[in-house]
């Protein structure tokens, strides 16, 4: 196991103060998953490192050390991307919080890293809702938290005209009187990552929310409330 990593592609998810002058940097990296790094002295005025530790920017991070907390010693901007702004920025905080709270540390997820990067780019485009639903579903699937949606738990294909329920940890099951109903067509569209139909989008929102809430347990999701407050303006 290497204890020195050079110029690893990464995004900063969050930073927070540590000890008197340092920062803890929570980063999502291409090959090492989510890592916690100490940026020593980064809270001193004019720290060269601090100005480079911007969220939502493609960076190259270099660090050393093993175990839980490693030491960040260099950060460099890869170039290309611009600042997220406005609503896209708020949605960016949301997907970063999902990664922070759901992804276990030091566990490589290369495909998910690419999806995070693509999603940041897509958020600046038109409607963020389908973009967010797709990211949520990809994240949950990658973590093994979302069962296949085009087959029932019993192994039969989901039918477009059918009505179903979704049981946590089990998967698509027959519609039940006290459970939310999902249209077969919506489940098939979600499985194909097609959120163009408003009904699919609405049912995906309900299903993703139920799954995310379940796997978060009692950890609060701060950014969701902020997005709701913004929509209510």
């Amino acid at each position, binding site marked *: 196991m290497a204890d020195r990593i050079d110029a690893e592609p990464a995004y900063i998810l969050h930073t927070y103060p540590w000890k008197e002058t340092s920062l803890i940097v929570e980063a999502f990296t291409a090959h090492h998953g989510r890592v916690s790094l100490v940026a020593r002295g980064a809270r001193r005025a004019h720290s060269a490192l601090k100005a480079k530790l911007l*969220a939502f920017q493609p960076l190259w991070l270099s660090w050393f050390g093993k175990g839980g907390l490693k030491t960040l010693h260099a950060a460099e*901007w890869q170039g290309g991307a611009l600042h997220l702004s406005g609503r896209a920025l708020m949605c960016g*905080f949301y997907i970063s919080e999902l990664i922070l709270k759901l992804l276990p540390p030091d566990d490589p997820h290369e495909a998910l890293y690419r999806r995070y990067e693509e999603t940041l780019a897509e958020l600046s485009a038109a409607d963020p809702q389908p973009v967010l639903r797709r990211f949520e579903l990809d994240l949950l699937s990658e973590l093994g938290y979302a069962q296949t949606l085009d087959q029932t738990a019993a192994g039969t294909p989901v039918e477009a005209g059918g009505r179903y329920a979704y049981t946590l940890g089990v998967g698509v099951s027959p519609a039940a009187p006290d459970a939310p109903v999902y249209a077969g067509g919506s489940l098939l569209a979600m499985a194909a990552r097609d959120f163009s139909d408003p009904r699919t989008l609405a049912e995906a929102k309900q299903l993703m929310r139920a799954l995310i809430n379940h796997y978060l347990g009692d950890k609060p999701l701060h950014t969701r409330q902020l997005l709701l407050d913004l929509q209510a303006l």
Partner: protein
Amino acid sequence: MMHPPALAALIDALHALPGVGPKSAARMAYHLLQRDRTGAGRLAASLTAALERLHPCERCNNFSETPVCELCANPRRDPRLLAVVEMPVDLNRLEETHAYPGLYFVLMGRLSPLDGVGPRQIGLDRLLKRAQDGVTEEVILATNFTVEGEATAHYVGELLKARGLAVTRMARGVPAGGELEYVDGLTIAQAYADRRPL
């Protein structure tokens, strides 16, 4: 190590300052008690006085000894302009430039979505009331150019635009006197994106 209770309490109190860890707090406490007892007395007295006399200004939310602070009460300031800043130190920086003739609102914080600091935690309802005084014509968002400052600017901007106010954002780009050779890439990229016609 066991400290007498009064010393432990002092170290604890100093430890509450930002960027001061337990070791620095202990050093400060010993310094005040051993080497600078007069200074320590002044510190104690001025802290008590500050706590007693300073309150948020009704207009700008900055610290003031009077209900409305001197700056807000100054008739030579342009009441049509309202700049929103995060902290008093940001207001001071803008004032030092003598370039801004208007009034201010100090948020005393910023939105920090991932830390759970939302609109309810910073007094946005007071800003809303202040900006809708019927005199304000333009609100200038002068929060920091960090992701949290940008989030704050966006949120406050949407809030005020929904109420029919003209909202502008401080520009960002290559610093005055800056040579491209020495400016960081992200700043140059942003300056390019925010370019304006001549």
